[in-house]
């Protein structure tokens, strides 16, 4: 029972990171209709940028400030990269067929991956000195690594910020309008280009923070981008254009992944942890193709 509780709670906390990254994905899809397969690479870039900044800062100031500053720096770099990517690559693809847009994001993922490994090499890198203390915190008899708790808190704070930005600010409202009906929004003076750029910037920022947190848990290497790819089962589960769906889906997939890692690893030799969400996704698709709260599309000839 202890094992179950531990896996369950860690799963929720890990899932909150997935939820954060999935939120960025859903925002892009809602606002511009782009199905982004480069999310894993965005996550990885964020992690490496933060690591680079952290290693610079940590020589001159205490660890906490250095990490916080590096995180803020990552968010700004993400903002800049998001605007740039949208402007250079994605803006020209508005209105193109679905396969073309998807393959542009695949091309982006190759480009980013190549660039990251050219700059930072493929060896696993860790945040040294460790940002979060290594001894686990014991909450009600269940031992949980502190890094998970802090990741959970950080992901939660950022999710609240992004969701309230989307719900209550003027820019967020224009994004909502664009997601709802692009034609109507355009005719009322909402700039679609600005909305797309904003969506990409938010996705880059969310993925960057997600990558940093994942890098703190397991170290940074290529597998971070595979974890970023887990965002796809998450959004399929929650529904492609549903923000609550992304959050619920993220947490569900996190729990599922941890439980399958804990219980099924005995029966399947290794790797089941990464595969389980995809297997779950295929089965789920057969029964509920539009996810929990996705819009059902009715087609006419």
């Amino acid at each position, binding site marked *: 029972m202890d094992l179950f509780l531990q896996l369950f709670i860690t799963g929720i906390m890990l899932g909150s990171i997935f939820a954060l990254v999935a939120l960025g994905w859903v925002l892009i899809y809602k606002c511009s209709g782009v*199905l982004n397969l480069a999310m894993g690479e965005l996550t990885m870039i964020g992690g490496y940028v933060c690591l680079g900044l952290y290693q610079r800062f940590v020589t001159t100031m205490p660890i906490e400030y250095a990490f916080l500053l590096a995180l803020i720096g990552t968010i700004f770099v993400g903002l800049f990269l998001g605007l740039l990517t949208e402007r250079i*690559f994605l803006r*020209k*693809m508005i209105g*193109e067929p*679905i*396969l*073309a847009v*998807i*393959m*542009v994001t*695949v*091309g*982006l*993922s*190759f*480009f*980013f*991956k*190549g*660039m990251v*490994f*050219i700059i930072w090499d493929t060896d696993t890198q860790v945040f040294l000195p460790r940002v979060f203390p290594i001894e686990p915190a014991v909450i009600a008899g269940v031992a949980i690594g502190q890094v998970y708790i802090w990741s959970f808190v950080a992901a939660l704070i950022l999710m609240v910020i992004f969701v309230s930005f989307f719900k209550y600010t003027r820019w967020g409202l224009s994004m909502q309008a664009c997601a709802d009906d692009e034609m109507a929004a355009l005719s009322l003076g909402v700039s679609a280009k600005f909305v797309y750029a904003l969506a990409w910037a938010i996705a880059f920022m969310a993925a960057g923070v997600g990558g940093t947190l994942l890098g703190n848990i397991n170290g940074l290497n290529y597998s971070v981008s595979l974890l970023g790819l887990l965002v*796809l*089962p998450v959004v*399929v589960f929650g529904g*492609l254009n549903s923000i609550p769906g992304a959050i619920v889906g993220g947490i569900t997939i996190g729990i599922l992944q941890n439980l399958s890692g804990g219980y099924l690893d005995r029966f*399947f*030799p*290794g*790797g*089941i942890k*990464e*595969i389980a969400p*995809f*297997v779950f*996704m*295929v089965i789920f*698709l*057969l029964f509920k*193709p539009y996810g929990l709260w996705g819009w059902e599309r009715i*087609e*006419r*000839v």
Partner: protein
Amino acid sequence: MSYLPCGYYFEDYADDQKWWRTRFIKGKMILMVVLLAILPLLVDSQWLSVAYTINYYILAALGVQLLIGYCGQITLGHAAFVAVGGYTTALMMLNVPWPQSMIDGGLVYPICIICAGFLAAIWSVLFGLPSARVKGFYLIMTTMAAQWITVPLVITQYVAQIGGRGQAFSIPTEMIKIGPFSIDSDTKIYYFSVILVAVCLVAMGNMVRSKLGRAWIAIRDNDIAAETMGVNIVGYKLLAFFVAGFFAGIAGAFYISALFFVSPEHYEWFFSLLWVGIILIGGVGSIQGLVFGSIFVVMVFKLLEIAVMGSSDLLMASYPQLGWMTTKIIFFKEAAFGLAIIFFLIYEPNGLSYRYWQLKNYFNLWPFSYTGK
């Protein structure tokens, strides 16, 4: 279809649909066959291996072209089916107690190729089943799941452990033999690949211009309209997955002869995306485009490699601090491939085959050429 030069008229449909419609096309094709036949005399074995890599990519991307270009079912997991083909061949060669007469007679490899094709086709249909219910992005997800389930889980963890040899299988050379011809040198691999590609391309071309192909194209253009016109869309979609899987299995079985061993890293997700990239660069919905795309991608990789490797001495001599570039050639390749896909999609969305079509028409209609934009 391109415009014909002046003076050619056809009176029935069969003539219009012929493979070689004019004498010029016949001459061109014969020239191509001759060129392909004497290529081993012209170039050394390094370029022959490039040539059969191109042929392998053509075979593997053939199924992708069928699914995406003709049937409209986007697949991002085709390497899984190629892997099934490769491993079927390897396991059959190693574990079936073949009688010595069959090994000597060169029957083993052809039988393995056909079995690999059928098994890969069945595996492909299995993952094509969701296409009955979902399409677009959701189908992409299921084909991606095919990749993730097949290669890292089933093949790496179970299939590759059979026999306890570790993950990579090496194949005994004397098994790879077709009839009296033992495929053991680069030249022979090259000829074998050319024949295989020719057979598969002709089969594909014939399928596409028959009832089957018309049904697939109808499904691609609008599946609901196709259904109202009486096309059994589930049946034809699954048939498309079957045929695509069959080609993939043949590709996997062929690559065994080139490598003499298999290992899961030849079937990573990168290759699934690479083959989709090939058909996008070449042109979606065109068999020629597939060939152009394969040649383009393989040549770009090769030239990049030559450029970096060739300049490495020079680089090391004058800028020793740039020596790291040679060790990271694979990432330069990936980044270049990514940029190539992006720029082709943005600036050349119809692919290379469209430019070829324009060029052909320019000369066919000369001196009154007008071929669109």
